[in-house]
């Protein structure tokens, strides 16, 4: 179980403290699919990075199975938001295989597993491309394949589908859910798309623009979920309104 207790993140800039996250507390249980929704710049990436152990908390604690997180580890794999997360010196296949190799998987097995996930994200035929020869969306898909191939306990996904077309996005959502169903990792998924959150998540955390929790919504819709299904639209309207109002409030507070 993952537990955040009053997590605070402050960046010190020349003349003032930028308080990005102001005391975030929530729990995610083992095998849960947890979504984070919030306006741009509210601190979603920062939050994910702290769970990943890449960033120190400025206050509060993050506990994993009761123990404080001190750094990155192979139990938590993150797919970053940026396009530069593939190792430039490895091909697509090399990138997907590499962490498996590090963790001691035999050559044949890791080749097979890598190719399976590469095909799953639709990059069959591009195994021998170097990252700089891929399009933006293809890079993101390759990074996703690498993360999934590792089959970690916790998957931290930072807008992994942001640069994908609707079609690709739909397919990958389905694949992700399939994997989640079979291996039951804990997934923490940052997204901007309200419908994506509804389709995927067990619970949805809505953040305010100034780095606080607006609310956590339980998503009880039956799986598999589809935009047209009963309750979807209501939920969408509700969440959309929450995100919007959190933004306006923050704006008002500022002025």
């Amino acid at each position, binding site marked *: 179980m993952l537990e955040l207790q009053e997590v605070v993140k402050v960046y010190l800039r020349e003349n003032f403290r930028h308080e990005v996250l102001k005391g975030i507390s929530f729990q995610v249980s083992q095998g849960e699919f947890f979504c984070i929704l919030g306006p741009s710049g509210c601190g979603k990436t920062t939050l994910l990075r702290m769970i*990943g*152990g*890449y960033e120190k908390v400025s206050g509060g604690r993050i506990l994993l199975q009761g123990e404080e997180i001190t*750094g*990155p*580890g*192979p139990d*938590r*794999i*993150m797919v*970053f938001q*940026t396009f*530069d*997360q593939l*190792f*430039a*010196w490895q091909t697509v296949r090399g990138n997907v295989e*590499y*962490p498996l190799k*590090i*963790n001691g998987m035999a050559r044949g097995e890791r080749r097979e597993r890598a190719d399976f996930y590469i095909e799953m994200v639709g990059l069959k035929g591009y195994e021998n491309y*170097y*990252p*700089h*020869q891929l399009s933006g969306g293809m890079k993101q898909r390759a990074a996703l394949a690498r993360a999934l191939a*590792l089959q970690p306990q916790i998957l931290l996904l930072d807008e992994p589908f942001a640069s994908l077309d609707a079609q690709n996005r739909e397919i990958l959502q389905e694949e992700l859910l399939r994997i989640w169903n079979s291996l039951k990792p804990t997934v923490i998924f940052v997204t901007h798309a309200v419908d994506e959150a509804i389709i995927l998540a067990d619970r949805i955390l809505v953040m305010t623009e100034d780095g606080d929790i607006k609310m956590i919504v339980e998503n009880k819709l039956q799986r598999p979920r589809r935009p047209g299904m009963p309750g979807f639209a209501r939920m969408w309207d509700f969440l959309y309104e929450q995100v919007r109002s959190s933004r306006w409030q923050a704006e008002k507070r500022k002025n």
Partner: protein
Amino acid sequence: MAKRMFANRLLSKLFWLLLLLLLWELISRSGIFEPTLFPPFSKILLVFWQELTDGLLLEKTCYSLQLILKGLFLSLAITVVLSFGAVSSRWVEDLVDVLNSILHPLPGIALLPVAILWFGIGETSILFIILHSVIWPMVVNLKTGFRSVPSIYLELGRSFGLKGIRLLGGVILPSSLPYFISGLKIGWARAWRAVIAAEMVFGAASGTAGGLGWHIYMTRYYFDIAGTFAALLAIVIIGILVEELFFNILEKMTIKKWGMV
């Protein structure tokens, strides 16, 4: 950066080379400068050819080259260890910084008393001078390279379970390869300079006939400036070969292929 129109750069380099040589020949023949000190290139080439065919130059070059390669490999190992220590631990970094600011600006010649005291006057001292010349610029470059590794790569490496030496080999080194290659290029050139200078001091001390540095010293002493230039020509030819065959191919197989430059 700039896209090239012709695939074959060698041709255009050759053109420049020939132009420079022609210029040399013309200036020398014009007699503006004292020709014993500035001999025409054709004469240098003649001496070069004679010394090449009688095996002298080859032997001397091999001797110096052998020293350089030893020096480079040792330096490489030490540099990687120092730079990696520096990025892994705050204390080591400070030590390396202190050593670097102390030792980098000190000329090898000023360290001769210590070198002789510690290592005598044989090959070891020449190697010491080479190391002292090569290590520091490589450390400067490699440290900057290591620090320029995008933090996302380090984060990923650590996530995958890499630590220490494996993080170095798997992530840090490949990612800082442009700096590494730059450093190696500088180190290679520096090693030449160092070996020449050191051989001038330690001469044929090591019992053999000495290398190119000693040869240069002797030809200069005997006022055989064309001979001096012939020895320099040997260095230049090796330099061009290594640049074209080693460094260019290395870059093509790595940083160029990976889209890093």
